[in-house]
C-alpha cells in the first residue's frame, strides 16, 4: 500500500510538472484571453438559457469528459449572499450536460464542517435534483499528495482530493466578493476549497501560514486551465467574504483564464487588479492589462459598480474605470 501510494504521488507530481512545463513554455504570440460578461439581473429561469449561451461562446468541448463544478459554500446564511447561488450551479450543470459532459459538483468549505448541511441550508438540495448523489465533499474525499514543482508559497506539496485531480475540467464557480485579507475572492481564491479539511483542518490554516496570496498562486499553478464562471448576479461588498452586504451587479463573468476572469471582475468591482497580490504574482502586470484581455459581451463601463471597501482595502480602489 505504501509503495503504491508513493508511486501515485510521484506520477501526480510528474503530471503537475508536465502541466506546468506546458504552461511555462512561452508562446510565439500570446493570444489574448477571452472573457465574457453577460447580463443576468436575477436568479431566475432565464439563467439556464444564459448559461448555455456562455458555454457556446467559449466553445467548450466537453463531450464524454468529466467536469467538476466547484461552487463557493461558506456559511449557513440562506438569506445572505455568502454562497454561490444554487440556481447558477444548476444552470451550469444542465448546460454542461447538454454538451455531453459527465458533471459532478464538489466543494470543501473552509470553516464549517457539515458540508452537506451547509449545502442544504444554501438551497442546493432544493434546487438541484439528486444533489447528494452528484456531490462530493472535498474535505473528506480520497486524497493524493501532489508536489508543487515551483512553489511560490512555503508549501512544497499538498494533499488534494482525487475527485478534482481526476477530472478533465475543473469549473471554478465563486461568488463575486470582497475579501478582507486579499481584496477580492474570485475564481482563483475559490481554489482554497480544493484543499481537504480532513487533512489540514477547518480552516485550512496551513495556507494562511504559507502565505495566502502565494498559496492561491500555487493552487492555480496546479490547475492552470480550468474554466471560471463567477456569480456576479448578486455579489458581496464591505467586509467580505462573510460579513459583507449584498451587492447586486447583475452579471456572470466567464472564461478559460482565471487570471483574466478575476482581473475583469476586479474592474467590475472598481478594484485595481494590479493591486491584488495574487494576480500580479500569478501573471505579472502585463497580462492583467485590459488591452491584453479579449472581452466580449457587455461593456465593462456598462456594468462596473463600486464595491464598498473596508478601510484596510481602500488603497485597492481603481482610480479610473
Amino acid at each position, binding site marked *: *500500500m505504501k509503495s503504491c*501510494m508513493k508511486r501515485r504521488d510521484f506520477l501526480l507530481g510528474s503530471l503537475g510538472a508536465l502541466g506546468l512545463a506546458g504552461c511555462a513554455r512561452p508562446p510565439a504570440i500570446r493570444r489574448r484571453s477571452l472573457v465574457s460578461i453577460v447580463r443576468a439581473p436575477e436568479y431566475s429561469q432565464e439563467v439556464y438559457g444564459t448559461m448555455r449561451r456562455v458555454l457556446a461562446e467559449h466553445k467548450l468541448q466537453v463531450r464524454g469528459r468529466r467536469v467538476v463544478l466547484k461552487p463557493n459554500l461558506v456559511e*449557513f446564511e440562506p438569506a445572505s449572499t455568502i454562497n454561490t447561488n444554487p440556481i447558477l450551479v444548476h444552470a451550469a450543470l444542465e448546460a454542461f450536460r447538454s454538451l455531453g459532459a459527465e458533471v459532478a459538483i464538489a466543494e470543501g468549505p473552509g*470553516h*464549517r*464542517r*457539515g458540508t*452537506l*448541511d451547509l449545502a442544504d441550508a444554501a438551497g442546493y438540495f432544493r434546487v438541484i435534483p439528486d444533489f447528494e448523489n452528484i456531490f462530493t*465533499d472535498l474535505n*473528506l*474525499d*480520497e*486524497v493524493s499528495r501532489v508536489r508543487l514543482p515551483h512553489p511560490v508559497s512555503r508549501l512544497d506539496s499538498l*494533499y488534494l482530493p482525487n475527485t478534482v485531480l481526476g477530472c478533465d475540467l475543473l469549473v471554478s464557480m465563486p461568488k463575486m466578493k470582497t475579501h*478582507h485579507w486579499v481584496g477580492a475572492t474570485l475564481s482563483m481564491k475559490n481554489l482554497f476549497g480544493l484543499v481537504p479539511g*480532513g*487533512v*489540514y*483542518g*477547518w*480552516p485550512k*490554516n*496551513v495556507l*494562511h*501560514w504559507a502565505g495566502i496570496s502565494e498559496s492561491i498562486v500555487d493552487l492555480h499553478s496546479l490547475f492552470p486551465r480550468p474554466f471560471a464562471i463567477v456569480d456576479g448576479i448578486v455579489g458581496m461588498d464591505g*467586509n467580505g467574504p462573510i*460579513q459583507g452586504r449584498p451587492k447586486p451587479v447583475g452579471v456572470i463573468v466567464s472564461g478559460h483564464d482565471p487570471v483574466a476572469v478575476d482581473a475583469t471582475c476586479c474592474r467590475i468591482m472598481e478594484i485595481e487588479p494590479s493591486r491584488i497580490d495574487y494576480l500580479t504574482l500569478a501573471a505579472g502586470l502585463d497580462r492583467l492589462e485590459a488591452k491584453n484581455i479579449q472581452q466580449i459581451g457587455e461593456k465593462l463601463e456598462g456594468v462596473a459598480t463600486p464595491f464598498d471597501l*473596508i478601510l*484596510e482595502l481602500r488603497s485597492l480602489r481603481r482610480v479610473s474605470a
Partner: protein
Amino acid sequence: MDLQNDNGALEKIRAAQNPDGGWPYHKGGSWTEPTVYALLAHHAGQAAAPRASEALAWLRAAQRPDGGWPPRRSIDQSTWVTALVALLPPETIGEERYARGIEWLLGQSGMESTRAFRLREFLRKGEVREGPDESGWAWFPGTAAWVTPTCLGILALKKCYWRQPSTRLRERIEAAQAFLLSRRCADGGWNHGSARALGYNSAFYPETTGQALLALSGIDPALLRDSFDLARGFFRECRPPGGAAWLRLGLLAHQQLPAGAPTFSMPSRTLTDTAVTYLAQRAEQGYNVFAD
C-alpha cells in the same frame, strides 16, 4: 444497553464499518476521526463493537513513529486527531501507544504561542503579550491554534490527568483553557478561531461553543454565564445535529442543560454526527465518555 432505544445509532455505525476495520465519514476510505468516534459510541453504549479488534488494529497500525496519529493512514503527518485517539481507554489501544500519543500532544502548540513567533512579533511590531500563558492546539502542525483541536486536546489531557495527575499535565490544560477563554466571542460563544477579525466581531458556532463549554468544565461558572445563556437559547433554533449534540454535551458538563431541552430530528449526514449525537444522548443517561 437497550439498543432498541438508541434510535438505531449503533446499528447505523456498525453498518458503515469498512472491511479494513476503520470507518469513513460518509462513504469511502477509513479515517481516524470517524473510527475513534465509532469506538467511543460503542464504549458509551457499553456495547462491544462486533469488529472492535479490527478497528483497534487499524488504529494501532496508523500510529506514526513520532507517537501521533495522522488523519488517515496514507497521510504522513501526525495531527489533531491524536487527541481523539487519546480519548479512548488506554488499554484498548495499548498503554505504551497511548503514552506516546500523550507525549506527542504535550509537545504540540499553536505557532502563535511559540517563542520564535513571539520574538518575531516583538521585532516586527514591538508587541509583548501579557496575561496568563495561553497555548492551544493546531489542526495541523506548524499553524495556529484553533478552538476545536484545543478543546479535544484539553479533553484528552484531562482524562490522562484523572488517571495520573501531574503538574505538567495540569499546567498544559490550564494554558489551553486560558486560550479558549481568550477566544470567546462578544456574544458569549465560540467561533472556530478568532473572536474578532479586522475589528469585526465573529459570530458563534454551535459545535465549537459546545466543545469549548465541555473543555471548560471545572471553570468558575460565573465566568461562563453569558455562554450558558447563549447555548440554551440556541435550542429554540433548528440546526445540524452535530452542533446541537456538542451544545448538549457542553451544557451538561456544567449542569446547565435545561430539563426537557428539545432533541433534534434533522438527519445525521456523517458518521461523526451520528456518533456525537449518540454520545450526547448517552451522556444525558449518565454514560459520559468525556467525564471522569
